């Protein structure tokens, strides 16, 4: 009886996984197809990958995307961490509404954030004589990344014992030193996870980039979208495959880190229990 149930459960899981990953699997398979068709298989080739890497427009868009993701993730991590530290030191009466405000951009539809920012940049650009471009794109990405970092650092701060910092300062640390030597190492896992999430969010954003990049900058997702005018070229399959694999690797890193941290904590608790 239980064996049957277990089998059914496994089948169900397999079906769900198939449903989730079949499209991606098809996409990856056809990125190696020798013909341009998505129905007729004409042999294995790496031509689409070769073509992809000789496509200057795509490569330029790729560099833009990487630059925006790295810089915005770094900035958002800095700002977000500071904000989280500040928030956790606030009275609950202020902290709760501020956290709520912080969560709004996460729930808000991208298209609304995108259009709002676009209008803001066009409006400000009129006054301050700037045009939308890499700068505005970067500001937009930093903006939508910050809440993710805050959200990922806050729990670590909550776990942190307030007395630790006080103790450090009692023992002669300046507050900067206490922050650097005591608080920072404790919340570091949250910061790193936040940075990784911000980076991934940046890489796959299309809608907000589309509205804020202006007429001289194009990210990868924008370039891909423009390539879908008629038929989806296998070059796009190749590109999507590469993107999928890199995001997958990033997610794996994030998850493995989290599991390791949990195990470490469990061990520490055990030791603590023995003492």
């Amino acid at each position, binding site marked *: 009886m239980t064996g049957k149930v277990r089998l059914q459960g496994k089948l169900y899981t397999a079906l769900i996984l198939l449903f989730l990953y079949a499209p991606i699997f098809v996409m990856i398979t056809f990125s190696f197809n020798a013909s341009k068709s*998505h129905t007729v298989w004409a042999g294995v080739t790496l031509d689409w990958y070769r073509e992809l890497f000789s496509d200057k427009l795509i490569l330029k868009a790729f560099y833009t995307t990487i630059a925006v993701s790295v810089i915005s993730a770094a900035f958002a991590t800095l700002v977000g961490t500071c904000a989280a530290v500040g928030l956790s030191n606030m009275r609950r009466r202020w902290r709760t509404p501020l956290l709520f405000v912080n969560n709004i951009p996460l729930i808000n539809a991208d298209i609304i954030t995108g259009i709002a920012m676009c209008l803001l940049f066009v409006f400000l650009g009129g006054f301050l004589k700037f045009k939308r*471009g890499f700068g*505005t794109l970067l500001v937009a990405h*930093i903006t939508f990344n910050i809440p993710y970092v805050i959200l990922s650092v806050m729990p670590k701060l909550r776990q942190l014992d307030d007395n630790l910092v006080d103790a450090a300062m009692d023992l002669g640390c300046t507050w900067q030193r206490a922050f650097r030597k005591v608080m920072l190492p404790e919340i570091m896992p949250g910061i790193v996870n936040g940075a990784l999430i911000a980076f991934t969010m940046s890489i796959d954003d299309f809608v907000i980039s589309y509205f804020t990049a202006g007429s001289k900058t194009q990210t990868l997702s924008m370039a891909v979208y423009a390539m*879908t005018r008629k038929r989806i070229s296998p070059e796009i399959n190749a590109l999507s495959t590469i993107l999928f694999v890199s995001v997958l690797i990033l997610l794996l890193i994030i998850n493995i880190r989290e599991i390791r941290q949990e195990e470490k904590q469990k061990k520490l608790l055990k030791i603590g229990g023995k003492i």
Partner: protein
Amino acid sequence: MKNKICALIALSLAAALLIGCAKTPASGDSTPAPSAPAALSGEVNVYNWGEYIDESLLAEFETQTGVRVNYMTFQNNEEMYASLRLGGSEYDVIIPSDYMVSRMIAEDMLEKLDFANIPNAALIGDRNKAPEYDPAGEYSVAYMTGTVGLIYDSSFIADGDIIDSWSFLFDPAYSGEILMIDNPRDAFGIALKYLGYSLNTTNKDEIQEAYKLLSAQKPLLQAYVMDTIFDKMEGGEAAFVPYYAGDYITMKESNPNLRFVLPREGSNVFADAMCIPKGAANKRNAEAFINFMTATDSAARNMEVTGYVSANAEASKSYAENYDEADRAVLFPADDELADCESFINLPQDILTLYDELWVSLKA
């Protein structure tokens, strides 16, 4: 401690803002001073369809003229139009389709071109020199053109049927084997042509008649399609689909049973044309770019990469030699074959609204 941390937050936020703002104006600095006609400098911002150019031409234009090219791509006309309408964009060359050119002319969004700077415009074929969408030929230089025709899979065709008319798209004998373009303007255009009307008609009765024809056709259809046309026709899943001649050549490589015909009732000839948006900062560079792209060598190379037919008559004539006779007839129809064909032009708002309403109720 609390205060200091707050100050730190404020400081980093201010820094973020400063860096963000400081970076942005920098991109505007490079706008060049108006240059003398002989020597060009500065940049040109080009906004073209995705995958619609031989990219090596861009680098070549840069070395030849010293003008830096910023090349951006869009996916459809409406997207391009919206990004211009929004303001704050700074494109110098745009490449909209026929009906969008005529709409932008009507809305005063385009600059008149100085043809003294575009001598190669003389190489454009007669049909595209003063096209329906730009009757005076003042605002645009045609880039690529092509026809929409009836693509069919000969293995589906009953003996004795000679395919030369749109009538097969409405033929119950092929029920379940017909595909239709999923786009109001093209679908109505075909119905109107079959009924003997202009595809730019503003007569509402004619449009209603076309609507009746399309709703009678709906039960016969396998599907309304766009992106999946290639896969369906290459996989031999359907008998008929109206689509572009250039794409037929690609599909045929995977399915040799496919044929293309320009129906006798006439059809749609599309053209995408290079224009300069109103107020472009680098008009002189833009004209140099248009001239460069219209040259016979560039035109031939663009044809090679995109598979569409250049509006440059010389280039398309010499390039036609690369195809066998059958394909040449498909891609480069003679002018008299195109006598009944039309390009889309902009329509009054009430007609466009009518199209939208009828299309929604057709698909419902």
